[in-house]
């Protein structure tokens, strides 16, 4: 899984209400529709600035707040390839993996807005092409890698008929 794209930089504590506001999430299950409102309260034009394959890059505690899975799904349907942050809120992190949105913990101070990045999840590294540096990636727990490589928890279940981890 290798992705090429540019960084859209956000700050610390981007909560799930910012990712997708509660006023939309209850209305529909159409994720492409929800995706249009992604990050709207922080940047009303954000959706239009995305080129498919771009990254959201943020500070600490990304995805804090509600358990709404609409948050990672809206990001995924906005065709963001992965979210890079210094740290993630717990439920968001799980939900992202379960829905097949790659999330990567790394030192995002080394990435500026619009920097061009290459993210290689399997090899576990990020290259900041704009700055000509490589970033260390905190590896995913094995269970999560397994779910992500199966394409999310739903396909993991379909494939194995239930949880299937060797601990």
């Amino acid at each position, binding site marked *: 899984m290798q992705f090429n794209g540019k960084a859209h930089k956000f700050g610390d504590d981007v909560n799930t209400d910012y990712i997708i506001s509660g006023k939309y999430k209850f*209305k529909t299950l159409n994720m492409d529709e929800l995706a249009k409102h992604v990050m709207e309260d922080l940047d009303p034009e954000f959706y239009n600035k995305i080129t498919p394959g771009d990254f959201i890059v943020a500070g600490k505690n990304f995805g804090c707040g509600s358990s709404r899975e609409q948050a990672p799904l809206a990001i995924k349907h906005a065709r963001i390839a992965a979210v890079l942050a210094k740290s993630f809120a717990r439920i968001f992190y799980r939900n992202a993996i379960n829905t097949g949105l790659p999330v990567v913990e790394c030192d995002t101070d080394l990435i500026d807005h619009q920097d061009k990045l290459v993210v290689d999840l399997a090899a576990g590294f990020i290259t900041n092409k704009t700055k000509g540096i490589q970033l260390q990636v905190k590896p995913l727990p094995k269970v999560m890698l397994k779910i992500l490589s199966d394409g999310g928890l739903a396909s993991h279940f379909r494939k194995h008929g239930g949880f299937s981890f060797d601990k």
Partner: protein
Amino acid sequence: MGQTIIEKILSNKSGCKVYAGSIVVADVDFIMGQDGTSPLAIRAFRDMGGSRLFDPSKVALVIDHSAPSPSEGVSNLHHAMREFARKTGCRLYDIGDGVCHQVMLESGRVGPGCLVIGADSHTCTYGALNAFATGVGSTDLAAALISGKMWFKVPPTIKIVCHGRLPKGTYSKDLILYLIGQVSADGATYRAVEFTGEAIDALSMEARFTISNMAIEMGAKAGLMKADEKTMAWIDRYGSCRSFEPVEADPDADYECVWEYDVSSLEPQVAKPHRVDNVVPLAELAGMPIDQAVIGTCTNGRLEDLRIACDIIGERHISPDVRFIVAPASRNIYLQALKEGILEKLVRAGAAVVTPGCGPCVGTHNGVPSDGEKVISTANRNFKGRMGNSTAEIYLASPAAVAAAALTGKITDPQEFIK
């Protein structure tokens, strides 16, 4: 080696003795979904090839976030939940039954030693009942609906010890706001928290729920408390159909850290926009005009909270410059508040009482503020846009402080109204 509460519960439910850092697949005792998350869970359930629930008696769906429905889109999602419940045989709590978490606390299905998951981040509320209860997303929920199991990484535990007694006019809400201000919004991420100490022991169950409810606002996976006589009295009162086994931390349990606070001179606190950890003493904001005051939610919509508000209001009328919205957290609470004359008093004072449920907490209906307005609320989140308008400002406080603000139209120290 000794174990913390969460290590013990996860050991019991997975059948192997585990400590922080292990990964377990554990049996779930109860599963809850609400109307913001269940529709996606139902979709994921079908996606996974699910046809029946692992045990319908261990599943409940609650329609509370937009109840009654404010639009046709929501109505159709509600319909899908009702159909799912009818087909699978699980319990559905419909509009007017209350906020999912209060409904669970009153259900008799959740108690000491249990492992509960809910597709709502404030599921951690039941930690005050000595249960490991945590919020998950819709896909995790669907996997549990099918298998009755869920995987967890056993988190390290932070112990928070609260010494002393809360002074008069200061409540458990002030305490948890203060703690979140100290610990910060991500200070306990990936951790379980055990709340202990004399100040916690002295609180009623209702006041304890407020504390565990907000554990997630410091990032925690669970906000646990030990079970005592008050816990067991709560369980008895809601007539449980099952027996529970309280779980106590071992004296030599290994905590990641222990934080101690003396709360005996704590003042009323307020979380300012747009972060829950942006906490200051209320006195710093005294006199600031507000447009709307809200009492309710899974944090502070319980009977004790309504009683506190009612005592502050007394025979007075609210300020003509304020809208005052009251949302009892459950049908039971609504009925009891009617019986005690609390709602009559509040309505006479100028309150608008809305259906038991989430009320205006999450901006779907029931009191969306207009541009630039200031709201004081007993809820647990003040994020930008949370109540449906991203230019409004939300201040979080205790029911007493919200009632005092409703009376004066300004942020006001409730102690001024306490006899």
